[in-house]
């Protein structure tokens, strides 16, 4: 294994160490709650970064995939009594199928049609969650979602969910890294660089774009399901297009095409609403301002600075 390959695992070990240490250092449930949301967002952003940063396709609909995962898990376990874990899988498969339905026609086109299609999709999903109030509870939300349970161990506290969601986030990071450092990852980055050249070398560009879109949607759906079981209540507002924009912002702030950047972006932007609660109505402006500043001064994202540290430079490895 190359030196850079070891760098990734060292980074992963450091992150895992931090994750284990945090509950001992600050057992305050409020902080754990913030970190839980960081991990949920990080899972979505890892997938989204594969799509945007590696394959070069932009989606403004990942809040909808996140929301669909949450609502499918919530409604089927809450109203119909389905068991949570299989339902989560069912949600992921359904959302993946929906993403394929959107992606197959749209990703044949050159240019950023995916942005428009996913934006429209997000609006539709959002309207449906508000309007189908018999099923979804409408604007006030859907509640009564049961907690998850692993062999009788009920995940009903911030600490327990912390253990679950951070394990999931670290696994997602590892899987994404496996994908990036492979023939598939090279194919995705190649089609980002030049679709005709990638195709001429044997990369099935359309199929790859659809597959990575579906993969990122599935990750978002899984995170959404976890979210639903964690809070027990979900509302349409959580999954509106502004959240999609926030997710893309996290990708860009952290660093497109760097998996660690996804974590950093999520870690940096998730707590911001809490920190800035005194100027809440200006939240979107502040997000926009951060995005502009990053694009102007650090177009490769925050992680590029940290990425110069040799042991962290596991991204874009040869």
């Amino acid at each position, binding site marked *: 294994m190359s030196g850079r390959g070891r760098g990734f695992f060292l980074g992963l070990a450091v992150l895992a160490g931090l994750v284990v240490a945090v509950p001992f250092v600050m057992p305050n449930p409020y902080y754990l709650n913030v970190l839980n949301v960081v991990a949920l967002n990080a899972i979505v952003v890892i997938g989204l970064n594969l799509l945007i940063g590696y394959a070069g396709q932009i989606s403004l609909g990942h809040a909808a995939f996140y929301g669909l995962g949450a609502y499918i898990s919530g409604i089927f376990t809450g109203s119909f009594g389905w068991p949570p874990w299989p339902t989560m899988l069912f949600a992921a498969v359904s959302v993946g199928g929906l993403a394929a339905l959107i992606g197959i026609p749209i990703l044949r086109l050159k240019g950023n049609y995916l942005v428009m299609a996913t934006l429209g999709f997000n609006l539709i999903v959002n309207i449906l969650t508000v309007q189908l109030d018999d099923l979804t509870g409408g604007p006030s939300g859907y509640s009564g979602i049961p907690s998850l349970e692993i062999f009788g161990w009920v995940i009903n506290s911030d600490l327990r969910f912390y253990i679950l969601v951070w394990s999931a986030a670290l696994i997602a990071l590892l899987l994404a890294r496996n994908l990036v450092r492979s*023939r*598939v*990852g*090279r194919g995705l980055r*190649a089609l980002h660089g030049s679709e*005709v050249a990638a*195709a*001429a*070398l044997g990369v099935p560009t359309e199929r790859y774009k659809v597959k990575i879109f579906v993969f990122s949607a599935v990750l978002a759906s899984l995170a959404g399901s976890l979210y639903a079981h964690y809070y027990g209540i979900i509302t349409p507002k959580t999954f509106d297009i502004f959240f999609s924009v926030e997710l893309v912002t996290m990708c860009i702030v952290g660093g497109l095409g760097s998996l660690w950047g996804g974590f950093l972006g999520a870690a940096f932007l998730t707590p911001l609403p809490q920190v800035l609660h005194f100027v809440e109505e200006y939240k979107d402006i502040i997000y926009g301002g951060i995005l502009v500043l990053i694009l102007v001064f650090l177009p490769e994202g925050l992680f590029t600075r940290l990425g110069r540290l040799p042991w962290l430079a596991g991204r874009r490895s*040869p």
Partner: protein
Amino acid sequence: MTQPILALEGLCMNFGGMQALSEVSFAAQAGRITAVIGPNGAGKTTAINCISGIYRPPRGEAYFEGQSMLGLASHQLARRGVTRTFQNLQVFTHMSVLENVMVGLHGVTKREFLWALFRLPGFQAEERQVMEQAREMLEFLDLAEMAALPAGQLAYGDQKRVELARALVSRPRLMLLDEPAAGLNAAETESMARTLRAIRDQGISLLLIEHDMSLVMGISDWVVVLDHGCKIAEGTPAQVQAHPEVICAYLGGAAEAGADA
């Protein structure tokens, strides 16, 4: 006669009202260097784009080893052993030189998403082999020292060699080269000519489009001349150089004598 590696039959292509190719037919023999030449706008790049799956010609046929190749997508052609380079460089600038060349093996390897995600059996062996073959190719084209550099940082001539390495690493049976010497200086062109001959001598058939006459005449086994979308001549370099229509197309209608200079 043995079966040609590539045969075009009555190929036509038009963009709107503009006839870019009309009824072009020629054949390229296996193990040879075939050049397609012609003045600007003659339809050379259009021809290569038609047979590499980028355009779909409305009429005519193209056969690769006797089998119809029109209608196949670029990536399918690559799997069958047809690769190409581009006139305006299409190097993956943000990837390393080594990674660029590794992408060249995409068509001849097969481990997909699930294998990559979960490192299923067979994945690592394939990765190692890809890495090894790519490194060998870098050695062959004098790029080994630049393996880890982002390809976009290389000098123009080196980037051209990266494109060549990328198209060659899968050992295709036919390589389509769109102006391999464009933008190269005399010494680099000379070295490119040596490389192309070496590739041919390994049994790989080459179809090249070129402006540089010294390169074409020096290395080609067969030359096809296009002008305004029509084939006006074909033959050995010596035959083509002496062909009156070719002289006319290159030097203008007024040229009669002294064109053999």
